[in-house]
Structures are given as C-alpha cells and as structure tokens.
C-alpha cells in the first residue's frame, strides 16, 4: 500500500542531504520525494511516498524524527488528501497530428505551454495515474523529453496536517512544542 508522508523540516543547508542519506543507509525504498518552501520562513515541506509492502511507514517516520532538523511528520494514508504531480512533456507534432494532440490535451485538461515547428511542450497536473495515462497516449506521437516533479500532497479539510508552529521554541533545557504524539 502507498503511504504518503509529509515532513516539515528546517530550511537549512544540507537537510535534504541528511534525509537522503538516512533513507539510503536504512535501505528504505522511496517511490518519490519532493521538497519545497512553505509559507513559514525557515520551514521546508517534504512529500515522501513509500510502498509499505517494501518499507514500513512507521519506521520511516520514527527515523525521520530522529533527525534533529525534522520538525513534524504525518502519514496521510489514513486521511483523505489531495495529491498532485506535475509533468512537462515535449511531444513531436506536425501538421497532420497537431489537432489530434490538442484534442487529447483538452480531454486531459492539460495545457500547451510552448509550440515549435515540429514539437510542443505540454504541461499537465493531476494524480499520478492521470499523468501516467496521458504519457501513454502521447507515446505514439513521439516523446522528445519529459520531466516530472513527483507528488505533493495535502490533507483535505480545514486542519493543517502536519501542524507546526515556530513560535513555541527554545528554553535553556530544550524545546517546547509537540503537537503530534508518537503511537504504536
């Protein structure tokens, strides 16, 4: 089963390296990993997809928490969530095939973002399966190149999952804020 983990980490040099190094040495099988800024300065958000038949999601979470730079981790597997992947696909197109490609682009609610004599770049966002399917239907035309970002995800509903606030921080003995209990 696919588990989507969302980790809030400190936005500091080398943190991505720490996470990647952790996954490699624990032999965690990661399907995808994306990271980017959040609205909170100093906090980055990582979206990690794990196949729990190969790698225990609890183990990944517990190990992420051991990294000093990890702020909060949540598993969205049990929460309804929105998942999105983004792809840019450069597909061959000529007079004969252009219309057909454009119709497919319409059907998939994708967008053409670049047109050249014999090719065009299509941008598509959606769940992974939708993008996989779109790539499949474009293949016969000839895919020149393609790039995908990997999944980002967010829980549905009005709460932030995971939740984290930077204000509750430091005292001489240690640190304040824990909104997430670890349970087994």
């Amino acid at each position: 089963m696919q588990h989507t983990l969302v980790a809030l980490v400190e936005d500091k040099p080398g943190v991505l390296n720490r996470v990647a190094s952790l996954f490699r040495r624990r032999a965690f099988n990661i399907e995808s990993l994306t990271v980017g800024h959040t609205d909170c300065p100093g906090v980055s958000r990582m979206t990690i997809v794990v196949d729990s038949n190969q790698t225990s999601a609890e183990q990944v979470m517990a190990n992420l928490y051991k990294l000093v730079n990890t702020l909060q981790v949540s598993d969205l597997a049990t929460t309804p969530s929105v998942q999105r992947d983004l792809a840019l696909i450069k597909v061959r197109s000529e007079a004969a095939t252009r219309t057909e490609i454009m119709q497919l682009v319409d059907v998939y609610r994708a967008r053409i973002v670049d047109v050249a004599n014999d090719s065009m770049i299509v941008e598509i966002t959606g769940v992974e399966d939708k993008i996989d399917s779109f790539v499949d239907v474009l293949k016969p035309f000839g895919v020149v190149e393609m790039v995908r970002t990997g999944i980002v995800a967010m829980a549905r509903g009005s709460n932030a999952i995971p939740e984290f606030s930077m204000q509750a921080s430091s005292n001489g003995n240690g640190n304040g804020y824990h909104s997430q209990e670890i349970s087994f």
Partner: protein
Amino acid sequence: MKYTGAQIIWESLLKEGVDVVFGFPGGNTLPMHDAVLNYPIKHVLVRHEQGASHAADGYARASGKVGVCLATSGPGATNLVTGIATAMLDSVPMVALTGQVYSHLIGSDAFQEVDVTGITLPITKHNYLVTDVNDISRTIHEAFYIARSGRPGPVLIDITKDAQIAQIEWDPTHEEVIQLPGYRPDLRPSLNDFDKAVEMISAAERPVILAGHGILKSGAMGWVRELAEKTDTPVAITLLGIGSFPASHPLHLGMMGMHGEAWVNHTIQNADLLLALGMRFDDRVTGTLSTYAPNAKKIHFELDPSEINKNVPVDLALIGDLGESLQQLVPNLPKIAHTQWNEEIGKLRKESALRDILYTPDNGRLYAAHVIHDILRATEGKAIIVTDVGQNQMWAAQYYKHDFPYKMITSGGLGTMGFGLPAAVGAKMADLEQEVWVIAGDGGFQMTQAELSTAAQEGIKLNIAILNNGYLGMVRQWQEFFFDRRYSATPITSPDFVKLAEAHGLTGLRAANREEAVDVIDTARNTPGTVVIDFRIEPEDCVYPMVPAGAALHKMIRRPM
C-alpha cells in the same frame, strides 16, 4: 571583553562541565591548542586520533559525562571515524571537535581538507560545521545537549580556522538559548498502556526479563531489581546490559545470545512473556528471527521509537525513559511467584552450569577462563573491566561476574578491535582511584598498542591482560567451525609484549601456566604504574556455547565433553 573563537570554545566546554579532553594537534587546531593552556582543562595527548575517540568513549561510559575528543582537519578527522561509529552504535554521549581549513578554502581540495561533516553524517546523532565565530558558543551548548539527552550519541563539531582565530566582544556569563525546534527528547506519548502491561505480566507463567544497556543509561537498576523480585521473574542480560542486574542475585540468569549460556537461551526460547528493558533485539541476541521466542508475547520498554518493531514485532510497546516507565508500572503489579518456572530453569542450569570451567581440562595448561576467573577473584568483582573485541571479549563477559553497574566497558554494537587500551585510558581518567583492567587479545591489542605511550606520559595505572594465543581467535574459531580449519590470515605474530611494555617504560610480566597466572595478577596489582601481562593461553580454544549465524537461538554448538 574580547575573546577569540578558540577561547570561546574552551569557555563553552568549561560551562558544560568538561575537565579533560583527548586529542591530537594539527595545523587547523593550532589556535585551539594554544588557547587551552590558559584553561583548567586537561588535554591528554594520544598517539592516534582513533585512540582519542575511544578514550572519550571510555571516559563517558565510566563517568556518565559527555566524553570529548579533539583532532585536526583531514587525516586527523578521518582517524576519529571508527571511534565515533563505535560510540554511535553503543549510544555513548560524546562530542568530537575537529579543526577545519579556512572557510574560503572549503570545497577546493585544500591541504588537509575533508568533508568531515559529510563523512560522519551516518554515524553521528547530529553534526555541525561552524564558520562564524558568533555561532561557536551556541553550537557547543546545543551539541552537548544533543549528545547527552534522549538516546545519547556522538555529535561532531567542525570549526574552521578563521572562526577559531576571529575575535569578538563576548560575555561568558551569557546563557545560550538552544534553538532546536525539531529535537524533542522529552516527548512522551500519552498512549502507553500500562494497564495492559500489568495484565500481561499477571497472566504470564514463564516470563523472562531481557535486561539491556538502556537500564544503565536510565539509571533504573533499582526499579529493575524491584520488578524482578516482585514478580519472581528471572533476568537474562545482553552484553551491554552487564552490570544492570547483580550477577550474584538468585534471579540472575546470565548473558543471552550468540555466546550466552545455554540455559539462558533455552529459557528465552521456552518463555511465554519477554520483558525487554532497554535492549534492541540485536542479531547477536536473537539468532534467526523466524524462530526467536516463538511462544512468547513481548513487551518492549524503549526510549527510541524507531527501535519498536524494527527487528522483532512486539505485542506492547512502552515508549519513554525506562526508570519513568517502571515507576508507573511496578507499584501496580501484584506480588507473583513463579516457583515451578524457576525450578525448571534451575534444573537446566545444573545440567550445564559452568560447563566451560568445570570441563576445561585441568591439565595445568592455561585457559582464558582461568585467567578471567583469577582476575575476578583478585579484584573481588569490583574492578572496571575494559575489553577489546573477539574471544577475549566474550570470555570476559562470560566469566567476570559483575554485581555493580558501569564497570563493564566493551564495544558491543560495532565490535571495534583496538578499543580496549584507549578506552581504558579514558575510563581511568574518569576516576584515577578506580582499578581498571584491560582484557585484550594479541590481535586487537596490536591495533592500538601505541596508546601505551599515552598511559606512560599521563602516569596512570592500568592492568593490561593480553590473552595471547597467536591467532585472531574469534575469526580462527569461525574458520574451525565453518571453513574446515582453513586458517586464512588468522595466525598472527606479535611482539614480545613484556619487552614492548618495558620499551614504553612500563612493567611487563608473563604467565604460561595456572600458578604463574595467579602470581602475576597479584604482582601487577601491587606494582605502581601500568603493567602489561602476556598470558600465554591455549592456542585453539573456542568460546562456547555458540549460536552459529543463521541458526535458531536454542541450536547452540556446545563444548565437546
């Protein structure tokens, strides 16, 4: 007042309660090594930085404080790696300080430059690269906090030369504030189900306590004793758990695992409830996982959530500090007796008790078991025993019975040969009044024998027992059992250890039979200064019992009768 970075380093270390560091100077630590002369912190000069890291480790294990080692950039830093990994795997609180090239040279393959923070990423709890003198004080405070809190471990701080040299206006009385929003070692789940634990313990008929290193880390020895006595539960220990429960206590079973006593492993395999206290079901202890304690429910008392269900799926996890958990649990337990279970175990034990010493041929030839036993008797079980790795380590664990905690210092997780001598230097520096014995083999001792000079220079007294059999014993044993006695790269030539000791200005003694063994131990204890004893023991002796790799815990190779 103006302070240089180097001065701030020592001021900060003083604030953390440091009074000794183990180190080796180099180009990129010159400012630090200059500044220390004006501070009441002792710098012990080692002969190899690996020795510094092991010494800091031994010091930490013996004193309960954070051990500190110091090396220069490049090769100095890389020489610390083995010791840092050793500390990581045994959860030892340690701070390693390394000098680094000038900030503007980083990444340019400068002289003696290595990416030590990259290299030590997997083997440190956390590490820092400090390029700004303003960060030094807070970083050191944070590093010590991380090293000693939660599950302890090594932290490395790489400090560039320009940061050491720079001068700033600094107030040494200023309290540093820790900014680690992602590090919460005091996190306590509210979901620990102690009621279920009481239920499971009350219902068990064949319970066993598995006593591990966590007991010593938490200082929960008293609670463990109460738990065992209240519920009449026998206690098996791991290698690193030695000392957590008195060996002379009637409920003390003995060491479990690959070289544990036979009745201990059988008891675990026959149990219906395992109480795992601060142990992590390491492969040395479980044998093949598919056949491990098949009929036992398991309750895992553990501080580190990532250890839960990592190797062995457990029925109940109680996460948190062991002492705190037991404090919640034990008062709610009923008084239980397991007379029949303990009788069964007693029978098993009689059948195979001390099989090794009882059946070790008494032909006047010297066996390791005799040596350890003699040291035990001479020291009344009160010495600090620091072992190296291999057969010597296993024999020390099997035959030196520890009633007191924090006296067995051994590299369990990483199994680092050469650990013994430098770790003993560190342990001795923790308390110069304590009697410290090193138990090592001729192989492991050679790896770090240069640290004899450190002992000589510091004028400390160590008693060093080298179990000399002319082989890399443990590897030879595996070659005997599994490779048809093909002794590849295991026969080893050593220097004359007596002459070696004397060359270092220390005392050297030799024993080749049982009478001599008892004599030299006595002589060594009464001779001032470090003494090296070359015990010429039976060359092809093996550690029994042994659970071969891949075998079930109860399928042990026993000593042939």
